[in-house]
């Protein structure tokens, strides 16, 4: 266990070095936050009655999305893992007495975590201080806040296990682009990355319920704003937890299968 913790520490520290990229990320997050809110504002002015979410719930959803973007976004590519796969440096990974799956899991998790820690706080603070209707609201109530935190943590594990799985498949196909783009489009749609899941057509929402993606961030953000409460929140968090186990199980199994067929690039 200790080796994985050391590994976490090193990846985490090296992730924290990238301060300039964090600043650039922050400004992007503010830009997109405002653009999205203004688009929805125009929409709500004409179609308020048919909207599936209250406007302040939506704004909160959008700001949380921007604040935790680097933790929750699905298109996470670990540059080092990808280049290892491409040039064959993976050889060294394979001749260590450690489980590749957990190692990659921790690597991806720690880099996501170090990225979000540099970014989320300024977005949250500034979004709180913005004038109505652009501002981030306080959590619905104490229950919502506690469940939001729990669900965020589980969501972070879920997105990491899905990301790890994609990297493992990339390792097998020796090229990450195809598999990652495909995964990205589908996952992002059903996760609520393009529009919140409630804005999707009914039949897509139905499909989304049977996929893991909407449990990554759509669920915690809606719990926070009070869009999902009570027993629904509890049962959804349980399903979310189930998906973590399922996706880790599949990833772990794939990793085992793939290692027996692996090819290493380069001499």
């Amino acid at each position: 266990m200790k080796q994985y913790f050391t590994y976490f520490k090193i990846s985490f520290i090296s992730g924290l070095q990238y301060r300039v990229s964090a600043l650039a990320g922050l400004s992007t997050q503010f830009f997109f936050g405002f653009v999205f809110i203004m688009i929805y504002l125009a929409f709500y002015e004409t179609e308020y009655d048919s909207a599936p979410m209250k406007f302040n719930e939506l704004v909160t959803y959008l700001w949380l999305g921007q604040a935790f973007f680097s933790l929750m976004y699905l298109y996470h590519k670990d540059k080092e893992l990808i280049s290892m796969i491409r040039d064959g440096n993976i050889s060294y990974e394979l001749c260590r007495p450690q489980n590749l799956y957990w190692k990659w899991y921790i690597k991806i998790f720690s880099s996501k975590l170090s990225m979000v820690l540099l970014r989320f706080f300024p977005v949250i603070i500034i979004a709180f201080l913005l004038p109505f209707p652009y501002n981030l609201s306080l959590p619905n109530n104490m229950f919502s806040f506690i469940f939001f935190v729990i669900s965020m943590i589980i969501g972070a594990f879920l997105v990491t296990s899905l990301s790890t799985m994609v990297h493992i498949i990339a390792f097998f196909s020796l090229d990450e682009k195809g598999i990652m783009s495909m995964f990205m489009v589908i996952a992002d749609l059903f996760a609520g990355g393009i529009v919140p899941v409630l804005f999707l057509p009914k039949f897509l929402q139905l499909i989304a319920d049977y996929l893991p993606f909407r449990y990554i961030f759509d669920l915690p953000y809606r719990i926070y704003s009070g869009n999902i409460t009570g027993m629904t929140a509890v049962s959804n968090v349980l399903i979310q937890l189930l998906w973590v186990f399922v996706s880790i199980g599949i990833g772990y199994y794939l990793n085992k299968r793939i290692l027996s067929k692996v090819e290493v690039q380069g001499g």
Partner: protein
Amino acid sequence: MSFIEVSSMSKTFKVTKRSSGVRSSVKSFFKRDYVYIDALKSISFEVARGEIVGYIGPNGAGKSTTIKILSGILRPDSGVCKINGMIPYEDRERYVSNIGVVFGQRSQLWWDIPAEDTFDLLKDIYKIPKDDFISRKNELVSLLNIEEIIKIPVRQLSLGQRMRCEIAASLLHNPSILFLDEPTIGLDAVSKKIVRDFIKKINKERDVTVILTTHDMSDIEALAKRIIMIGKGEVLYDGTLQKLKNKYDNIKHIKVITNTKVGSIRKKGIIDKRKIDGGYEFDVDSKIIDVSLFLNYLSNKVEVKDIDIENENIDEIIIKLYQEYEI
């Protein structure tokens, strides 16, 4: 049972094939052509504990593939490979804690941080007890003369410095087998010597079994008594270096310093004659004409001031071997 036992091991790679150009790229988008390349065709050999074996062969002969199978990275399509009672690719996690691997063309050190930090990480990965780790690290560091070097970020090291750190990193957990895939590639003479002396030393003192691939024949001469040569995926020669030399080392380069002008010499066994500064150089086939006979013959004809007999370079022997096997 031998320490390392490989019997009729084969490995085939499937490779996509396409010619250059836009048209064939488009075509290959719809229909891929594959070729199957036999990297290893039924390879067998055995290695005893404590041996140093030089594993040689031209580019693409299957050297790295063999090393990758032996170190548990790849799985052979057929055949058996048993090392220290374990099957590397079946028992990967348990097996690899007992081996050290250096790939000369790759790096296991973290690029942005000093090598010493990577050593600390390896300590946790291999679960090395603290005291063992410190004493072994100090020993390796002083043997390889890298006390100062391990404190500098790896990206700022020269290749020779980095390679010494790589070798230290692969031995921290005190493995009983060391695989070295082209450890001296691109190194200067001094670094090469340090690396070679070091390998010799750990082999002798700790009984580490070493399997080493290289294109540099002086590595082999300095280190390995036994060589295994492969080409086109097959074992072509397995035996001592000396035997190989005796078999092929029949060409002697003899330099003769003389003031006398030597005209054309026609005698069986003299292959070539060249004018050099202050005399001549002869290439003599010692299988046809004995060196002493040749010297006798020559001293009758000319006044010899000085002679210098050189054996054929091992590189040339290898080239000859490759030619003989058409690889």
